[in-house]
């Protein structure tokens, strides 16, 4: 019987009532008295020297209140990178300043170099167009291709960085010689060169920010589309603007999706604050859709060569990769962590391979910054691995299911530390593979293939067995790896006098459903109705210093902080109960919402304890404080390691190259499940994004650095007809061993595991159809690419 309440129940998402009835309150929905409108002036060339900006015409136009250029911000701080990565030779990465507005040079199409603030949006836009016409920018040759960028020292994105290289990273450098040796001596080596296509995150809500300044107190307020308001406050206050943190409140109200792109601090946030201070009026900015395409941090964009060395029976001996990773024109906050510690450390996959070496060169180009996007580095690692394993199976005529089985880490090997340094605590990769094969009815494939063939279609089946490190992140580990922040989280549980509860959390819900799931956990632990629990998030003046939501961390880090705070509430409740029941504290038990003296029928309800805490008429104040409110910070000991097996079946139309996804089976191990319905939704969304990457989405810059895919007409997002009815299973559960909820995280899984399953299925279909010359097709596996591959 499924639970209808608390942990494990599919409680309906309470936030959906406002989201689905148009009553959410997003940044752009807020209207403030006296507000003015900012419009950003963006570069139309990829690389250029700013010769002159004549602001006088724009400044004199109707309604214009202020004009800003890079000159106004040249003395404030840059927007920093969050991770310091060292090159193989030990030198620190090159870290150019990322200004609020470009100064001296523009470095990508969409680079903001000026802004206009006016009484109305239309007036600001008119003046911004005038300002663009009054700006002289001398074109410089655009640096777009990564290999060319590194090879040509004469043309530089940043004048001080001669080879456009941010760093040349090796992981683990000490293993390199051993890995090289193993590959040299291996009976078989499969090599694959591939591109992990660049993606635009395309959150449904574009970025928006409102700055306010209160002259009476000197306080600032920033309302913004952020996945982590405290981190944004830290960056904009301490690093960029030089505002004391205590004088700035950052609020991220309802946020319509982020997928990583709203983790980072962007220059527009500093701009609206500076403008609000100058004008002593609220100043607002909302991105147009094309601005999102141009200026949101993009995702992926790796060019990789991977080699897999193995025995003739498919037993893995070594993996070696060389990757060029695009960081774009500037370092976005987590851009240096994504291709390194979120990518290289996963390059062993779920396999007991003894030798792994990863080399990543990150390259500056005249394109938008690239940073973490749903999965962040782990999809790139998984795609490289699962594609090369599939290619090896074809070369050696081995069964892809059996090869995985043969190489999986087995349950008796945990805890297991991989050659790329991650200590996997637990897992059961054979179980998820078995489950996926059972649901996908692998043994019935031949019959389905024949049915497709009868319709003139080529049917194929693709497998991907994936693992990720999430629950980001243990500070002690990430500190060693170069992180400039800790990655704990925090929660405050406030029991109100009437017994209901407000929980202030550091995680930020921008669609995930925290308001529902976190309330389920609190209700379950305290034996009260879910409706008595309110989850408060997204406001630095209310919540403790937590690090927000990304990296499938909310439940595994913030959720655990919350349970630790609840433990403290229960402990305090026992003290109060002991006083009220005139018993010893150690004799008090707490169960089903009641504090009772063990072995007696003397008990107090949770509500009675709460009321007493706030009406302490006869408290022994020396030993018992009034009130019932507790805060806990939680810093995990380790990452969590969700894993799973995905099986995709496709039909390929050999005449047109069109791929139809017929079925998609996910068997995941997420540890313990808090709300199955929300897990279903997370996996559906993630797989949908992965199918988008595999079949449809591509960000194209031409050789001049012009973005050719700047609208939904040119950038193909998956639509309902592009995705199948998913079959999602998470019954194989090996609970996380180091957090008390036993949870691992499920937010990114679908986007990590699905792209190689789709591409492997397409290659399988082509091979079964006799087109065995096709070794690989880069994503997106579009009809034209498939058709061209068929033609040879």
């Amino acid at each position, binding site marked *: 019987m499924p639970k209808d309440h608390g942990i494990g129940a599919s409680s309906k998402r309470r936030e959906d009532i406002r989201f689905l009835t148009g009553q959410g309150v997003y940044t752009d929905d807020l209207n403030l008295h006296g507000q003015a409108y900012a419009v950003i002036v963006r570069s*139309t060339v990829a690389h250029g020297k700013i010769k002159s900006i004549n602001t006088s015409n724009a400044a004199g136009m109707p309604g214009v209140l202020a004009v800003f250029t890079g000159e106004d911000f040249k003395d404030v701080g840059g927007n920093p990178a969050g991770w310091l990565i060292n090159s193989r030779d030990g030198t620190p990465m090159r870290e150019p300043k990322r200004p609020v507005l470009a100064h001296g040079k523009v470095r990508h199409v969409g680079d903001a170099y000026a802004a206009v603030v006016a009484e109305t949006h239309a007036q600001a836009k008119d003046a911004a*167009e005038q300002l663009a*016409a009054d700006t002289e920018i001398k074109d410089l040759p655009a640096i777009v291709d990564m290999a060319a960028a590194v090879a040509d020292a004469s043309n530089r994105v940043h004048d001080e960085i001669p080879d456009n290289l941010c760093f040349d990273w090796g992981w683990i450098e000490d293993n390199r010689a051993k890995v090289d040796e193993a590959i040299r001596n291996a009976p078989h080596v499969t090599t694959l060169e591939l591109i992990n296509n660049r993606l635009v995150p395309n959150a449904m809500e574009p970025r928006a920010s409102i700055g306010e300044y209160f002259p009476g107190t000197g306080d600032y307020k920033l309302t913004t589309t952020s996945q982590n308001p405290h981190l944004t406050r830290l960056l904009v206050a301490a690093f960029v603007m030089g505002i004391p943190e205590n004088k700035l409140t950052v609020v991220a109200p309802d946020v319509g999706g982020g997928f990583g792109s709203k983790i980072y601090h962007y220059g527009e946030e500093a701009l609206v604050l500076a403008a609000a201070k100058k004008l002593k009026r609220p100043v607002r900015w909302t991105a147009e859709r094309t601005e999102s395409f141009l200026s949101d941090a993009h995702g992926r964009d790796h060019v990789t060569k991977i080699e897999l060395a193995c025995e003739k029976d498919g037993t893995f001996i070594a993996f070696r990769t060389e990757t060029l990773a695009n960081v774009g024109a500037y370092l976005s906050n987590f851009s240096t962590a994504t291709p390194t510690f979120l990518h290289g450390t996963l390059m062993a996959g779920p396999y007991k391979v003894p030798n792994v070496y990863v080399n990543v060169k990150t390259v500056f180009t005249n394109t938008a910054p690239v940073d973490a996007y749903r999965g962040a580095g782990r999809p790139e690692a998984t795609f490289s691995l699962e594609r090369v394993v599939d290619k090896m199976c074809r070369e050696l005529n081995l069964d892809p299911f059996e090869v995985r089985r043969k190489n999986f880490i087995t349950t008796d090997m945990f805890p297991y530390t991989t050659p790329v340094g991650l200590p996997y605590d637990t897992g059961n990769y054979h179980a998820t593979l078995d489950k996926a094969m059972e649901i996908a009815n692998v043994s019935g494939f031949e019959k389905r293939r024949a049915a497709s063939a009868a319709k003139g279609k080529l049917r194929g089946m693709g497998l991907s067995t994936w693992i990720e490190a999430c629950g980001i992140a243990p500070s002690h580990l990430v500190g060693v790896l170069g992180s400039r922040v800790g990655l704990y989280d925090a929660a405050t549980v406030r029991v109100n006098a009437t017994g209901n509860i407000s929980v202030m959390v550091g995680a930020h819900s921008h669609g995930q459903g925290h308001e529902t799931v976190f309330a389920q956990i609190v209700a379950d632990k305290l034996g009260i109705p879910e409706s008595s629990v309110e989850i408060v998030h997204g406001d630095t003046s209310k919540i403790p210093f937590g690090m927000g939501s990304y990296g499938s961390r909310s439940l595994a880090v913030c959720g655990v902080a919350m349970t630790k705070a609840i433990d403290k509430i229960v402990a305090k409740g026992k003290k109060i109960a002991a006083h009220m029941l005139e018993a010893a504290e150690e004799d008090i038990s707490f169960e089903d919402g009641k504090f009772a003296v063990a072995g007696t029928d003397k008990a107090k309800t949770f509500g009675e304890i709460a009321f007493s805490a706030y009406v302490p008429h006869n408290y022994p104040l020396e030993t018992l404080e009034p009130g019932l409110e507790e805060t806990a910070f939680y810093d995990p000991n380790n990452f969590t390691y969700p894993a799973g097996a995905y099986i995709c079946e496709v039909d390929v139309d050999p005449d047109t190259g069109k791929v139809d996804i017929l079925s998609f089976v996910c068997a995941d191990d997420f540890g313990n499940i808090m709300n199955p319905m929300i897990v279903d939704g997370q996996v559906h969304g993630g797989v949908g994004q992965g199918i988008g990457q595999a079949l449809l989405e591509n960000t194209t810059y*031409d050789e001049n650095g*012009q973005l050719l895919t*700047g609208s939904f*007409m*040119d950038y193909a997002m998956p639509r309902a007809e592009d995705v199948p009815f998913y079959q999602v299973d998470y019954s194989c559960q090996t609970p996380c061993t180091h957090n008390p909820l036993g949870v691992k995280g499920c937010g990114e899984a679908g986007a990590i595991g699905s792209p190689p399953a789709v591409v492997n299925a397409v290659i399988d279909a082509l091979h079964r159809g006799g087109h065995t010359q096709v070794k690989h097709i880069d994503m997106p596996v579009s009809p034209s690419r498939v058709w061209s591959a068929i033609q040879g």
Partner: protein
Amino acid sequence: MQLTDHRDIAADPATVWAAILNPEVLKACVPGCESMTGTPEEGFEAVVVQKVGPVKARFTGAVKLSDMVPGKSVNITGEGKGGPAGFAKGGARVELAPEGNGTRLTYTVEANVGGKIAQLGSRIIDGFAKKMADQFFENFKAALEPAEAETVVADAADAVAEDGAEPKKGWFKRLVGG
């Protein structure tokens, strides 16, 4: 994008050459051209209104002629700014050679766009550039030839002989009295 094509024009190379250097002719031949002023030596200033996919804009820009070999070849380069719509840059290498009684005009056109036109209209820009070039050179050819030139080019000399009348002049010829 790059495209190469040619047109056979029923006019001698000297006449064709003169037309290329004439801003009035260029104005009449550039699709959507509102004004064209200047000289071959100093370059031309042009205003052109065009719609590329969803983006309509008035481009103002400069056209320069270089590497001129009179009667034979010239490089034409131009850059037009369309304000918020972005910009277009292009160049054409034009070569003339006698062909029968007329001239073979061979052209290689290169076009690039930037800004909003690139972001919103890139998927149609190649077709657009080809159409613009085709229209320009069709107009140019028409300006130099009799109205019915399409069918009579090869037989122009015979036509004169048969009915004893001059073939009808293209409007450029009328304009310059050639």
